C-alpha cells in the first residue's frame, strides 16, 4: 500500500493529524453539502479533505471502488496481518496499531453493502472519512436513518409550501375559496389605508 506509507499519515507524538469534531454539521462547520446526516467527522491536519485521493477506506485497504466483497475481504486480511500489533516492528507499534484499527473500520464499512453504499456517496461528495464516536458506529441504526429521512422530507415539503404560499391569489379566479376572498379584501383595504 504505497500511498499511505511515508508522507500520508503522521500519527502519534504531538498533534495528531486526525481530529474529530464533535459539532453537529449545522453549527457552522464548513462543508460542501447540506444533506449530511452524520454527527461527527474528521478533519485532516486542520484542513478539510476535498479530494478522495487521501486516505479513503479504499486507499487504506489498497483496493478500488469497483472491487467486490471478495476483494475487500482479501485486502482486509492482508492489511490486518501487516499492521497487527503482534507482528509489527517495535518502533512502529503505535502507528501500526492505529492503522490496524482504521483498517478494521474500513473493512466493517466496506463489507456491509448498505454502509458501503453510504460511504460511496460520501466519497462522491468529497469526504474520505467519517469517524463515528459512540453507538452510531457500532451498527447501522435504522432509527437514525429514518429520522434523518423525515427531516429531508419535511424540509422539501416546507419549501414547496413556501412557494405555494407566495403565489398571488388571483381575484379573477372564479373558484376562490372564502379565505382567499377575505385575504384579498384585507390586502385591498390595507393598500387603500
Amino acid at each position, binding site marked *: 500500500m504505497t500511498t499511505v506509507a511515508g508522507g500520508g499519515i503522521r500519527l502519534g507524538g504531538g498533534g495528531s493529524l486526525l481530529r474529530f469534531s464533535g459539532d453537529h454539521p449545522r453549527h457552522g462547520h464548513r462543508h460542501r453539502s447540506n444533506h449530511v446526516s452524520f454527527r461527527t467527522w474528521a478533519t485532516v491536519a486542520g484542513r478539510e479533505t476535498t479530494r478522495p485521493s487521501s486516505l479513503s477506506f479504499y486507499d487504506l485497504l489498497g483496493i478500488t471502488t469497483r472491487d467486490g466483497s471478495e476483494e475487500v475481504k482479501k485486502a482486509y486480511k492482508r492489511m490486518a496481518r501487516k499492521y497487527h500489533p503482534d507482528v509489527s516492528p517495535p518502533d512502529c507499534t503505535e502507528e501500526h496499531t492505529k492503522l490496524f484499527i482504521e483498517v478494521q473500520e474500513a473493512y466493517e464499512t466496506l463489507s456491509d453493502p448498505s454502509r458501503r453504499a453510504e460511504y460511496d456517496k460520501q466519497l462522491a461528495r468529497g469526504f474520505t472519512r467519517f469517524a463515528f464516536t459512540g453507538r452510531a458506529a457500532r451498527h447501522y441504526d435504522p432509527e437514525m436513518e429514518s429520522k434523518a429521512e423525515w427531516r429531508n422530507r419535511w424540509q422539501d*415539503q416546507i419549501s414547496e409550501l413556501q412557494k405555494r404560499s407566495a403565489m398571488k391569489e388571483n381575484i379573477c379566479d372564479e373558484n376562490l375559496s372564502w379565505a382567499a376572498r377575505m385575504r384579498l379584501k384585507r390586502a385591498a383595504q390595507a393598500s387603500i389605508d
Partner: protein
Amino acid sequence: METSSSLMSATLPFFKAPSCKSRKRQVAMRANADEKKMAIRKDNDGKIIFSSEKPPTPLLDTINYPVHMKNLSHQELEQLADEVRTEIVYTVSKTGGHLSSSLGVVELSVALHHVFNTPEDKIIWDVGHQAYPHKILTGRRSKMHTIRQTSGLAGFPKREESIYDAFGVGHSSTSISAGLGMAVARDLLGKKNHVIAVIGDGAMTAGQAYEAMNNSGFLNTNMIIILNDNKQVSLPTATLDGPATPVGALSKALTKLQSSTKLRKLREAAKTLTKQIGGSTHEVAAKVDEYARGMISASGATLFEELGLYYIGPVDGHNIDDLVTVLEKVKSMPAPGPVVIHVVTEKGKGYSPAEAAPDKMHGVVKFNPQTGKQFKAKSATLSYTQYFANALIEEAEVDSKIVGIHAAMGGGTGLNYFQKKFPERCFDVGIAEQHAVTFAAGLATEGLKPFCAIYSSFLQRGYDQVVHDVDLQKLPVRFALDRAGLVGADGPTHCGAFDITYMACLPNMVVMAPSDEAELMHMVATAAAIDDRPSCFRFPRGNGVGVPLPPGNKGTPIEIGKGRILLEGNRVAILGYGSIVQTCMKAATTLWNQGIYITVADARFCKPLDRSLITSLAKEHEILLTVEEGSIGGFCSHVSHFLSLNGHLDGNLKLRSIVLPDRYIDHGSPVDQIEEAGLSSRHIAATVLSLLGRPKEALQLQ
C-alpha cells in the same frame, strides 16, 4: 427556591444562586449553561433520573409565562423540556391525574409556546388531559399541586381558568372545529393571530374531525393542525395481556407515512441519476416526491391533501430543533391555507415506567416517582364497572348472542375483561359513539344482543343515533351508562348529569338504575332479557357498597316496572332512583335517631314507572320526596307528571324533588361535589325536618 439553590451550590460551588427574576440573570445563567445542564441528573443513556424529592428546575423557575421563553436558545429549550418533564412526574405523583399524555407532548408544548405568541395566538389542545405542560408554562405552575381537586386547577383546559386556555376540551375531536371557528372569526375581524389545533391520532377516528377538516379545506383559512401521532387510539391501547395494535384503518395509513422506505429509495435513486446526467437534483427530487407520494406513501398524506390540507411530516415530536424549525417556517408564510403537521411522539416519553406499562400510565393515582408504582387503596368492594363486566361475562357464557361494543374505552368500561373472554364478540370502534350506536342497531336487526358500554356524558355525542336509529325503530340495543351522576376529579366535562333526562323522554326506552352492585347484576340480566325494545341502565363511578352478590355473578331478571320498599315508616316517604338510594338510607338513619321513622323506597325503573308503588306512597304519606343524581327533567319530573295526571297532587300531599342544581358542578372530591350539589344525606334529612315543621333541628344537623 432556597432548597433548590442550596442543592445547586452543594454540587457546583461556582454557580451563583439566582436572587431575583430578571433579564440580567438570564444572561448570567446562559453563560453557565453547562453547569446548569448538570442540574437534572441523568444516567449513562441520557435518561432523566426521577426521585421523590422536588426536582431542581433552575430554568423553569425563570419561566412564568410564554413571553419568558422567547429568548431561549435551542439548547435551553431542551433543558426546559427536561425540567418540565420532571416537574410533571413529580406533581402528578403527588396528586394523581393524567400522566403519560402530558409527557408525550412536553417538547411540542415548549416549541409551540416558544414560537407563537399566546394568548393572542390560540393553541387549542384537543383532549385536554395532555395540557399539563401547557398549564405549567402559562402561569399556573405554582398551582399544579391543586390540580383536579376542589377549588384547584381543572384537569382540562378551561376558558374561565386562564386566558391561555383557548377552548374548553374534555371530550375529544373538537379542536379542529373550534380552531376553524376562531380562524374564521379572525379573518372576519381583520386580526392577524395564528390558530393552532393539536389533535391526536386517536381523536382523528371521530367523525367530527373529518367534518372539520372537510370544512377547513373548503374555506381555506390559514390554520395549523398538529396531528400528534403516538399510535394510541383507545384507552388503553392494550388488552389485559399487553399492548394491542390501534384500532382503525387510519392508524395503518399513518404508519405507512412514517416508514416509506420505498419512497426513500426512489428519491435516492432519482438523486443519483440526476447527478450522473446533470440538472438540478432538487427539482427532480421534488417532482419524484410529489409523484411518488401519491403512489407509494399512499393513503395518509393524500387523504389530507384530498381534503384540501397541506401535509407536512412526519416530524420527530421529541426533537425540539425540528419542531421549532417547522413551526417557525410555517408561521412565517404569508398564506398557506390549512396545514397539517404530522408529529410523531411517544406516550409517556422520558419516564420509563410509563413507556413500559401496557396502559402507559394514562390515568394514575399517587405513585412513587422512582419506580412508577401506584399507591392504589385497597377496597373491600370492587368498582361498579368491574361488577358490570363480571355480570356481562356471565350472561354471555349462557347466551352466545350477546356482544359488547365500546368506543375506545376498553379499560374504563370494563369491556377489556369481556374482550379477554370473548375476543370475537367485543368491538372497539375507536372514538366514534355515533357509529357505535348505529353499529349496535345494525347488529340488533340481525338478532344479536348488543350491549353498548358508553359513558353517560360520551353518549351525548351519539344521541341522535339513539333516538332515530335505535328508539324509533324499537331495536333491542342495551346501553350500559357508566359514570352516571357526578364524577369527582374529572369535573363537568365528564359529568353524567343528563342521561336520565335524555333517555327517559324516549317513548320506547326502558330506563332503570340499580341502587347497589347486586341490583346492577340483576339489571344486566334484565337488559339481556328485554328483547323487543331498547333498554338502558346507569351506574356511578365508585365502588360497591358491600351487599351479597348473586351466586356466580349471574343476576336474575327483575320484573319490569317494579320497584321495592327498603324501609317502612310513616308520614314521610323518600323515593330514590339509582345509587342515591344509599344516601337516602343514611338520611333515614339520621332521622331515626331523632325519632322520625320514614319510608325509603327504591324506584328501580324510571320508565316504566312503578305506578302502584308510587300511588301507594302518595296515598299513605303526607310528604313524598323524590331524589335522583341527575338534572331536572329526569326521574323526579316523570314522577311529578304521573302524580299530577292522576290527581294525587290535588289533596294534602307535599311533593318535593331533590335533583342536581341547575348549574355545572366544578371538579373536586366526590364528597365535596355532593355537598356542593346539595345531595348529601344531611341535605335530605334537613329537607324532611323542614317539611315536618322542625326547621331548627334541620339547621343543627351535622
